[in-house]
């Protein structure tokens, strides 16, 4: 196979015209809702309702419905929190960091992954609020001036979490919205329905596609990308502090911040890859979200997966190297104790299976990459489970060791969180362009002005 490296390959296949792009991306928003969509939505809403029921019962009776117990104060609640925050990492990474690095292939997937970020962080944000014993007092976690002269504790990592996650959500949301403005304007211009027109008009903030607008827009987008970039790293770093700052063996580890960030990107990419495989098929976006793009994502999955694998190994090494027998036991217990099955699920899903992506055929095979992506997310969920539950279940005093078994309510809320996430996602794909119309147009072949005319 001969490849012409002098030419940059287009990230959009088939040289579609600008109008084609607008048409194909707006199509889902302009056609009637079909049966398949309803089926998907009803499944998702059913999961959401089940989760809401479990949560309602928890509010009614107390967190005692869950399996949490005395040594294991946190379990599914915080596992789900960290898992969903992790999922929320790919979006901003793709839209901000890859934007700064001028990776053109990101344009096809940026909008969608940003949306996923928003929804994942929304899902994640629920857990700290619901995991507490008295959720009606959640407001006390925020430093607001009050007549009780009460203030929050700034040395608590949980408080840092509150700031980290809310900042991340705010910035991601603004970034996403700013990117949407030109597309809203396009949709406004296309639609004939009065109702839609009003909404899109308001959402597009008076965008007139003027040169000046574009000029400002590009600048704002760049600044926001710069602003969001450190957040990608900081959020999961701070989430990892929830554990690293404690004195619990298995949590008190300095490798946690980079390890958590790598893991988050890893799981986020796997989730984006999974969902996009479906979206590109259903909406015929195969030429926009190309196989090349998916392959690039898979490469990132190998890289981050290997980083995570390195961290797993390093944790064991440091435990041994520290000479601290309690630390050593914690890790031996992870690999061979009561929860060994969870540990080995995690290792195989996160470290072993993604290595298959070294093989190009697998990297480009849609069914295999889909399965591997699912496995990565299973593995990453278990990673948080292993860290949180196994460390807590056997800490310092053997007398207080305990065992955690999840209840139906725990799994119900986990399932509900997927329902919550996918319900938002489904609403998103029917109300907003899931691919950035403006940005894709900028990267199709021939979009860039040239002094030499079209060479082909």
């Amino acid at each position, binding site marked *: 196979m001969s490849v012409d490296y002098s030419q940059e390959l287009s990230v959009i296949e088939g040289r579609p015209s600008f109008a084609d792009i607008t048409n194909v991306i707006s199509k889902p928003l302009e056609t009637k809702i079909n049966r398949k969509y309803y089926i998907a939505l009803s499944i998702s809403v059913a999961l959401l309702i089940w989760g809401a029921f479990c949560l309602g019962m928890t509010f009614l009776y*107390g*967190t005692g419905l869950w399996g949490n117990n005395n040594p294991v104060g*946190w379990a599914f609640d915080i596992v789900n929190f960290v898992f969903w925050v992790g999922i929320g990492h790919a979006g901003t990474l793709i839209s901000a960091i890859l934007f700064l690095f001028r990776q053109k292939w990101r344009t096809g997937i940026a909008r969608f992954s940003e949306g996923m970020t928003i929804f994942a962080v929304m899902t994640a944000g629920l857990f700290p609020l619901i995991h507490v014993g008295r959720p009606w*007092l959640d407001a006390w976690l925020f430093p607001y001036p009050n007549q009780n002269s009460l203030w*929050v504790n700034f040395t608590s990592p949980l408080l840092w979490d509150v700031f980290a996650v809310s900042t991340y959500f705010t910035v991601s949301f603004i970034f996403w919205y700013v990117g949407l403005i030109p597309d809203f304007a396009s949709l406004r211009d296309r639609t004939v329905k009065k109702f839609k027109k009003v909404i899109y008009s308001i959402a597009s903030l008076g965008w007139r596609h003027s040169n000046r607008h574009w000029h400002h827009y590009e600048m704002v987008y760049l600044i926001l990308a710069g602003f969001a970039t450190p957040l990608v790293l900081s959020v999961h770093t701070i989430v990892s502090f929830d554990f690293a700052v404690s004195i619990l063996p298995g949590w008190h580890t300095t490798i946690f911040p980079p390890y958590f960030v790598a893991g988050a990107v890893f799981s986020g990419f796997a989730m984006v890859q999974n969902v996009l495989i479906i979206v590109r098929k259903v909406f015929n976006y195969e030429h926009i979200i190309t196989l090349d793009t998916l392959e690039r994502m898979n490469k990132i999955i190998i890289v981050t997966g290997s980083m995570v694998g390195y961290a797993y190994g390093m944790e064991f090494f440091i435990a041994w190297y520290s000479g601290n027998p309690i630390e050593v*036991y914690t890790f031996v217990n992870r690999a061979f104790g009561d929860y060994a099955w969870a540990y080995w699920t995690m290792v195989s899903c996160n470290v072993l299976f993604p290595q298959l992506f070294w093989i190009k055929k697998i990297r480009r095979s849609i069914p295999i990459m889909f399965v591997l992506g699912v496995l990565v997310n299973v593995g990453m969920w278990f990673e948080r489970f292993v860290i949180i539950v196994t460390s807590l279940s056997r800490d310092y005093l053997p007398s207080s060791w305990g065992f955690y078994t999840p209840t139906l309510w725990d799994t119900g809320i986990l399932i509900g969180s997927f329902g919550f996430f996918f319900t938002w996602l489904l609403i998103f794909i029917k109300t907003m362009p899931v691919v950035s119309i403006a940005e894709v147009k900028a990267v199709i072949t021939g979009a860039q002005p040239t002094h030499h005319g079209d060479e082909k």
Partner: protein
Amino acid sequence: MNSKEKNKRFWLSLDDLKNSLSFAKAKENEFAEGMTDNFNPEDMPSHSRRKFLALAGASAAFAATACTNYRDKGEIIPYNKKPDDLTIGTASYYASTCTGCSNGCGILIKTREGRPIKIDGNPDHPVNKGKICAAGQANILNLYDPERLKEPHSGANGKFKFDNWKNIDNKINVALNNASANNKEIAIITHSVLSPTQKKLFDDFKIKYPTTKIYSYELFDDRTRQSAWKQCYGESEFPVINWGDANVILSLESDILGKEGNFVEQIRLFAAKRNVDDAKNFNRLYVAEGGMSLTGMNSDHRLRIKPDAQFEFVMCLLNEILNVRKAGTISFGPLAKSKIEQYLLNEFAQKEKLSMSVLNSLVNDLISNKGKSIIYAGDILAEKVHVAVNLLNEVFGNNTLYNKERSSVKHLDLSANEEIEQLIGSMYSGNVGVVIHFDTNPVYHFAPDYGYSTALNKVPVVVTMCEHENETSLKSHFALPVHHNFESWGDFQTRTGLYSLQQPVIAPLYNTRQKESVLLHWLSGSVENYSEDGYHQYLMKNWEQYIYPQLSVASDFRTFWFAALNDGVVNYKSVVQGIGLFNYNKIENLIYSYWQPAYQHGKSNFTSPVISVVTAESDASKKSEFSESLGLVLMLTGNYTIGDGRFANNGWLQELPHPVSKVTWDNYAAISLNTSKQLNVKIGDNVDINANGKKMTIPVMIQPGMADNLVSIELGYGRKSAGTVGSNVGFDGIQFLSKKNSSAKLLKDFTLSKGSGKYKFASTQEHHAINEPEVMDYHKKRHIVQEGTVAAFIKNPDFFRESKPKAEDISIMNRVQYKGTKWAMAIDLNKCVGCGICVTACNVENNVPVVGKDQVMVGREMHWIRIDRYYSDSPVEPETSNQPILCMHCDDAPCENVCPVVATNHSPDGLNQMVYNRCVGTRYCSNNCPYKVRRFNFYNFRNHFEDGYYHKDSLSLMHNPEVTVRSRGVMEKCTFCVQRIMEARQEAIKNGVPLKGTDVKTACQEACPADAITFGDAHEKDSQIDYIRNHKLGYHVLEELNIKPNVTYIARLRNKATEVKS
């Protein structure tokens, strides 16, 4: 107005009218002299009048608006006429006597606003000296139990309806008169009679109704001990033992620190000889037992001997000392000697696989501590063992430890089995007219082969007096609710030289009557004019007439009586009856008669046969069945918490972990690891036991330290009608008792086989030590429990410090400097026996909820203090360690910095405090606590347990008003009894004296019978706590984390005999 009126002179006083000089002078000053000395406008508050009005207006407005949202919690009834001896907010204490078992300990009842809220031992009581067992502590819950019988009931066949006392009295009076007229027996069935006045009441009753017979029984009694004493010394009353003088104690299947005798007193006396500052005088405890008891856990050397081999063991010791070592002063006739000579200790050791070095050191210790050692046999052992033990004690001259002034007192003999059988016989033949259960539950307690329950059907009138509905009341015609301990009058004499009194501290909560009053009322013959005060008067009269004159007190009776009530006890110089002389001749013959001809040098029925397991594959029908021929023994013992089952409905006691296995809400069949392997069962697997024609499926607990081929089941569980809390908890082993041998609870005639199914225990500690040998000894490797030996300590008092890992005291933060008082605790692991009394005391003091079996099963018990139990060495013959763990109130508490809302923080006097109102319940503090002492309210536990059982109205009266009742979703933990600290501080401020560390006693400290807990101000120089914090054996758990815990532990020294190789 006329001029006269105009000039009318107004005068202030006669002085004024007279225009006296002094008045004129005084009038010059507006205020009297001295009045204005303290008046200085500069010092007055700077509020202007305007501001004052504004503030006053605002407060009125606030008050008005705030009160609109006032949640009306019902009527508050103030004292219209305040009782003289009551100040609201101040506790009153009343001395009384506990009736929870036959020990009759003195108690001090703390009442607040007229309701009892806490029980402690009466410090003036010479036996229990201010301490009381867990059941005594938790008895408060029985008083307020919502399921107490509140009204008299009548009915039949388990169907009851409310009735009134008058009706019932009428009917019973008729029945009693009929019975005595027709010469039918009136049977009163009571527990052991401890009260002289109650005895007199029975006698009076007998005079009025001559056909009356009194039967008394106990599920756990000491009849074998009594009969052995009768054999040896001629009297069945036995003396109290001066445990505190014993250098060497050999306990034979006797749980002297856990449940036998007055164990509260025994713990105190035992622990007093475990003072590390007097290490040379440590006592040494040898325990020879088959079951793993609390005493065995605390032994220095433990010998695993099945209860049926105890006699042989004692005889071997006797032979070793008399004939091998020639250390005895007495000699037997040739007949007995020839038999005794055949009991060879080394053969016995070989057969029972006992360590010869331990046995040698035991013999040496007994010989070198003649007159200063004691050998003590358990109640469960047969009479012959007791006789042999008495003989052995005589041989060593250990009778010096028998207290010459105090011995047991018997008001009424316990009924022999034959008497009960006779009663049942006459019940069947219709010769019994009335049966009165005097707060007893024989339907549950009697061995099933008596057929008591069916016999009751033949009795025309069955009356049961009880606090709760129970198995017996359901079989009765009348169920009469009786007063609780704290609502009753009474007197007790459990030992010579001592009376104790019982007085009510609260008016009866329900329409109940004191059981003695009921009898007294029937005695009067008339149903009218029941007087609540009747028994009180009767008691006083009895004292005035009979007891007071004997005591030769100087004061008049009234003064004496009130002083006695105030103290709760009356000590008097007892007329020493003396222990009779040991009847050697008789005992020599007895020993000869005990001789079992089959016994020949270790190849006989004494041999422990090897159990051969018939596996399921080889023979499905036999299915790994054991039988008597294999040497298996079933031992039915007492339990540690719920007495003979009468405390079954007490959630606090059901939830108190078993001191050895840490199982709550259950009993089980305990077997050894080896036996479990042969039977092929694991913890929680069901086994089937067949004995006396009864079959029971019960789960097994593999108990390290159990003798092989021994099954032990604790009695008192498995009640069928004990109430919401207590019914169907555990398994009823009483059904294996037989009328033939109901006092000897050792069975050989039974089969044991693996059953089907599995059972889940609610244990507060996982059973890693048995399941996972690789984590054994972690408590020692992690320096959680640190131990040494007395010998090593005496040789080098610094040995512990030298071996201890040193913590580095570095911090990147600025340390908080504690000035003034800083609270700290110390726990002496030498003294702590792990009885769990502190846990119950803490539960009562701090309103700790009962969570129920399902919640303990998932690890959510709420106890603020717990006793950790660790095994080390082999799971077959382990060494056990106890360690009470509570919040350590660390200086650099890891829980504090992680709480996002500062709900847990540090007080200036060094307390790690919890602000319940601020807590949102993130549980991060608990995760970060290395001791895992924080407890989370996963539910509103009072509401969660059995559909709000503990939310019932009567129980809210029980709560300590000084301690917040926590609701769902908040974290809680030990506060070092901050309410007591505050009380002491208020007191100190009121009296204008500085607060001293010793002013405060925490609930656990106050309750600890071993005095293992010290509490005080760590900054107070030369205080006890300061001394212990710097003790050579002092250490902190997890010191290396550098979180600076404030509970110091004194490392346990085991008094190992030097010649014993470990």
